[in-house]
C-alpha cells in the first residue's frame, strides 16, 4: 500500500511527453480564476485605502487614512472589548456545542435526527431577530420576563435580568449562531468517526467521559480547529448584537468602529474602514500556517476502509443529554420565533400597552406588495442556484487542497482564507468596482447572475473549510485503492469521493441556500429594483424607521419558512442523514 501511495503522490512530477499532469493544468486555472474573484476586489479596496485625495480630485496616495484609523481614541478599548466578548462566548459556547454535537452523533438518543435538524432551524434565524427577541424579554425595566418575575415575586423590585450588560451581549451571541453553527458543523464530523477507537478505549477500562476526552476529541481536531478558526476570522466582523445591545451602554467593539467609518458617516470613510479591517488579514496570515502545522502533525483519519459504525448505549441515562439538548433548543428557537411571529401580528412589536395591540396590517402590506412577489422569485432563484453550485465547487477545491500534492496549494489556501478578511460592507464596494471595471463581467452587471456570483463567493470560506474537514477524516487508502485500479484524479473524485461526501455536500448546499437568502451587505450595491431579494427588501423596511420593522420581520419569517421547508424536502426526498449512519 505504501508503494502505491508513493507512486500516486509522485506521479504529478513525472511528465509524459505530450501529456502534462493534471495538476499543472488544473491548479493554475483554479488559482487564477478564484484569485481574480477574491484578490482583485480585495486589492481594489486596499489600494483605495491609500488614496488620500479629496473627492473629485485626481488620486493621490499616502498613509493618512491608515494613520487616522489607528489613532482613533477608543480603538484600543474597542479591540479589548472585542477580544473579551469573543473569549467569553467561545469559552462558554464552544464546549456546549462540542458536547451537543458529540451527544447527537455518538449516543443512542431518541429523536436525535429531529433534534439535529432543529439546530439547523436555529442557524437559519437571523441574528437580528434573536437579539431583538432577547431584548424584549430581558430589558431591565420593561422586559417581559423581568416584569413577570417582579409580579410573581414582589420582594424583587428591579431587574433581575439586564440584557444591556457585557454578560447580556455574551448571552445574545450564544443564543444567536455561536452554538447552532458549531453543532451544525461538528455533528457530521463526530458521526463520521469509527467507533472501534471508542470501543477499544472502553474495553481498556476507560469511562464514556474519559473516552470522549482522551480518544474522541483528539480525533476531532481537524473539524474542531476549522470551526475555531472560522470563528476567529469573524471575531472582528460580528456586528448586530453589539450595535443593538452594546450601544446603549457605550460598549463599542472593533466592528462597530468599522461600521461607524463606513456607514454611519457622511461622506463614508472607506479608506479608514479598510485600514481597520486589515487587522483580520493579519490574523489570517498567522492562522494559515498555524492551521497547516496543527493539522499536519497528527494522524487524523477517522474513516478508513474498515469503518466500524456504532453508538454509545446509555440506557435510561440517555434522557439526561436529551433533556439538556431540548432545553438549549427551546432557548435557541422558541424565543426568537415566538417573538417574531407574535410581533408580526402586533401594531408595534413588543408593545402590549397600546389600545390596539394586534393587527393584520403588516401581513397584508407585505403580501399585497408587488415588490414582495418579485423579491420572492429572485430569492428562490438566487438561493437555489447558489445551493447547487457551491457544494460541487467548494468540495472540488477542498479535494485539491487536501488530497492532491499539486504545487500551489499553499497559495490557493491563502486565497481562500483571505476572502474572509473583509466585512460585507467593504466587500460589496470592491465587488461593485470589480464588475464595473472588468469588461467580461459588465454584461451581467445589473442582472441576477451578478448576485449569484457574489453569493457563491460569499460562502466559500465556510464551504471549503467544511469540505476540507471531511476529506481529512477519510483514510488515504480509499483513494490509493482507487488510484491503484487505474482511476485518474477526476474519476476518483467523482466515483469515490462524491458518494462519500454527498451528505456533507447537502449540508453545504443548505448552508449556502441560507447564506444567499439572507445575504445583504455583500449584494446590496449590485442589486437593482428588478433583482432585489427578500433580504434586501427586509433591510430597506428595517432601516426605514416608522413601523416597518414588523414587515421586515414577516419577510424574515418567510425566509426562515423557505429555508426550513427546503431542508425538510432535502431530508424527505433524498433521505439523507448528515454523516455516516450508525445503526
Amino acid at each position, binding site marked *: 500500500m505504501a508503494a502505491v501511495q508513493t507512486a500516486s503522490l509522485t506521479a504529478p512530477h513525472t511528465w509524459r511527453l505530450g501529456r502534462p499532469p493534471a495538476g499543472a493544468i488544473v491548479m493554475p486555472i483554479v488559482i487564477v480564476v478564484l484569485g481574480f474573484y477574491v484578490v482583485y476586489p480585495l486589492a481594489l479596496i486596499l489600494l483605495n485605502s491609500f488614496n488620500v485625495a479629496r473627492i473629485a480630485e485626481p488620486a493621490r496616495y499616502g498613509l493618512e487614512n491608515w494613520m487616522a484609523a489607528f489613532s482613533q*481614541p477608543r480603538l484600543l478599548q474597542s479591540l479589548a472589548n472585542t477580544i473579551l466578548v469573543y473569549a467569553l462566548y467561545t469559552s462558554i459556547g464552544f464546549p456546549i456545542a462540542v458536547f451537543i454535537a458529540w451527544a447527537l452523533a455518538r449516543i443512542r438518543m431518541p429523536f436525535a435526527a429531529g433534534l439535529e435538524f432543529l439546530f439547523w432551524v436555529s442557524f437559519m434565524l437571523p441574528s437580528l431577530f434573536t437579539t431583538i427577541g432577547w431584548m424584549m424579554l430581558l430589558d431591565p*425595566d420593561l422586559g417581559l420576563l423581568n416584569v413577570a418575575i417582579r409580579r410573581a415575586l414582589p420582594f424583587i423590585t428591579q431587574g433581575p435580568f439586564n440584557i444591556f450588560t457585557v454578560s447580556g451581549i455574551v448571552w445574545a451571541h450564544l443564543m444567536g449562531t455561536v452554538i447552532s453553527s458549531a453543532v451544525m458543523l461538528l455533528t457530521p464530523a463526530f458521526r463520521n468517526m469509527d467507533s472501534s477507537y471508542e470501543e477499544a478505549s472502553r474495553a481498556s477500562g476507560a469511562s464514556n467521559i474519559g473516552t470522549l476526552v482522551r480518544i474522541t476529541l483528539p480525533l476531532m481536531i481537524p473539524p474542531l480547529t476549522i470551526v475555531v478558526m472560522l470563528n476567529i476570522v469573524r471575531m472582528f466582523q460580528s456586528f448586530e448584537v453589539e450595535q*443593538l445591545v452594546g450601544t446603549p451602554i457605550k460598549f463599542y467593539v472593533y466592528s462597530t468602529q468599522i461600521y461607524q467609518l463606513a456607514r454611519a458617516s457622511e461622506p463614508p470613510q472607506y479608506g479608514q474602514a479598510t485600514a481597520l479591517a486589515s487587522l483580520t488579514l493579519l490574523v489570517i496570515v498567522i492562522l494559515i500556517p498555524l492551521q497547516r502545522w496543527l493539522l499536519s502533525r497528527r494522524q487524523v483519519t477517522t474513516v478508513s476502509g474498515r469503518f466500524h459504525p456504532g453508538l454509545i448505549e446509555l440506557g435510561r441515562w440517555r434522557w439526561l443529554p436529551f433533556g439538556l439538548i431540548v432545553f438549549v433548543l427551546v432557548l435557541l428557537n422558541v424565543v426568537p420565533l415566538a417573538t417574531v411571529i407574535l410581533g408580526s401580528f402586533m401594531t408595534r412589536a413588543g*408593545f402590549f400597552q397600546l389600545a390596539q395591540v394586534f393587527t393584520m396590517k403588516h401581513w397584508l402590506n407585505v403580501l399585497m406588495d408587488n415588490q414582495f412577489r418579485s423579491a420572492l422569485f429572485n430569492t428562490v432563484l438566487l438561493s437555489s442556484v447558489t445551493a447547487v453550485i457551491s457544494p460541487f465547487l467548494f468540495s472540488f477545491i477542498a479535494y485539491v487542497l487536501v488530497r492532491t500534492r499539486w504545487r500551489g496549494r499553499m497559495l490557493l489556501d491563502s486565497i481562500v482564507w483571505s476572502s474572509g478578511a473583509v466585512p460585507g460592507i467593504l466587500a460589496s464596494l470592491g465587488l*461593485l468596482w470589480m464588475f464595473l471595471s472588468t469588461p467580461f463581467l459588465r454584461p451581467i452587471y445589473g442582472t441576477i447572475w451578478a448576485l449569484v456570483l457574489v453569493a457563491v463567493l460569499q460562502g466559500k470560506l465556510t464551504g471549503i473549510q467544511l469540505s476540507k474537514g471531511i476529506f481529512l477524516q477519510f483514510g488515504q487508502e480509499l483513494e490509493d485503492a482507487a488510484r491503484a485500479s487505474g482511476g485518474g484524479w477526476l474519476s476518483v473524485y467523482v466515483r469515490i469521493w462524491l458518494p462519500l461526501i454527498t451528505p456533507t455536500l447537502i449540508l453545504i448546499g443548505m448552508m449556502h441556500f441560507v447564506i444567499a437568502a439572507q445575504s445583504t451587505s455583500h449584494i446590496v450595491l449590485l442589486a437593482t429594483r428588478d*433583482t432585489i431579494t427578500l433580504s434586501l427588501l427586509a433591510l430597506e423596511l428595517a432601516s426605514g424607521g*416608522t413601523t416597518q420593522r414588523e414587515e421586515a420581520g414577516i419577510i424574515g419569517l418567510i425566509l426562515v419558512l423557505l429555508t426550513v421547508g427546503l431542508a425538510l424536502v432535502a431530508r424527505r426526498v433524498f433521505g439523507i442523514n448528515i454523516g455516516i449512519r450508525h445503526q
Partner: protein
Amino acid sequence: MLHPGQVLRLLHVLIALLVAITACTPQASAPTPAAAPAASGGDFDQLVQAAKKEGELVIFLGRAGSRQLRDAFPAFQQKFGIKVTQVAGSGTENADKVLAERDTGVYTADLWMGGLTTINTRLLPKKAFDPIESLFILAEVKDKAAWMKGQYWWGDPDKQYTFLFSASPSPLISYNSNLVKPDEIASFYDLLDPKWKGKIVSRDPTAAGTGGNTVYFYSHPQLGKEFLRRLFTEQDVTVVDDARQATEWLALGKYSLYLLGSGSDVSDAQDQGLPVKDNYGPFKEGARITAGGAGSLSVFNKAAHPNASKLFVNWWLSKEGQIVAQKADPLDQSLRIDIPNDHVTPATRRSPTVEYSFLDAQPEIVSSEGDMLAFMKQVLGR
C-alpha cells in the same frame, strides 16, 4: 452514504432544477442609450412622445425618499405610461453605486431625490448634475410667483442643481410626555440643564439624514459650536443610528428626550398611543423649516433617459405633481403656494405668521456642512 447511482440521480435532479429556474428567469433589460432631449422649445406633447419612446425613468432615492415618496411615482407611470424604477435604500449606498458607475462610464441614473448632505459632500463635487431650470417648459413651473416668497429655492451653493420643492417645520426635539412637560424645553439651552444628564438619546449627528438638522445648531448665531460641544460632552448623550430604537427607548422611558429624529418615527408612535411627542417649537432661538431628505430634486448629466427626466421634472413641479407629492408624504408641505395644503399634517404646515429660517436654502450654511461633520466627529471622539 450514497452509492454512485444515487449520486447521479441527485445530480440529475439538481441540474433539472437549475435548468428550470434559469428558463423562468426574466431577461435583464439593457440600458437604453441616451438620446438628445427633445422639446427644448417647450413643445410638451413632443416631449411626452420622446419620453414614451425611452419608456423608463430611473430615480435614485435616499432613505426618506424611499419611504415617503414611493406612493407618488405610480401616478406619473399611469399618466404617461413610462415605467418609474425607484432605486431605494440608503443615500450613502446609492451614492456609492452611482459614483462607481459614472467613474467607469456607466450611466443608469436619471434623477436624484435625497438628502442634501450626500448631494453636497459627494455628488456635487463630482459634477454629477445638470442645471435644472433650463428644463422647465410648463408655464406653471416657470412662474416663480407660484412658489414661496415668489422665488425658487435651491439646496446647492450655485443655486442651479438642487431644486427644493417642499419644506416644513421639523422637530429637532421629541420627548416622553409622561416624563417631560412641553414647556420644560422652551429654549435649546434648556437641554443643558443637568437634570437631563444621561436622559437624552440622539441620532448620530454625523450620519446621513441628520446632517441638515445638526447644521442648524452649528450655524445658529445663538447656539453654534460651543452649544453642540457642551450638549454632546456634558450631558452624556447616547448616540444611536436607528431612529426606531431611539423612539422606542423614548416611549419606554429609558430616555426622556430624543434629539435629531427624522421622518415620522415619533409621530407614528404617538398615533399608536405611545407617550411620545415631537416638539416643533417655536423656541426662543426661533423657528425653522427644512426640506428634509425627500424635498429636493436633481437631474444627472448624461442621464440614461433625458426626455423622461425632463418630463418628470415638469410634471413633478406642476400643481398636479406637487399635490400628488403632498398626498404621498403628508409630513412635508410643498413650496408651491398655489395648491391646497389640507393633506399636510397640521403640525408640519407652515404658518403664514411665523418667520422661519430655511437653512437648507442658504448656500453659505449648506457649504459649512463639511466643517460641521469634522467638528462633530472631533466632539464625539472619532
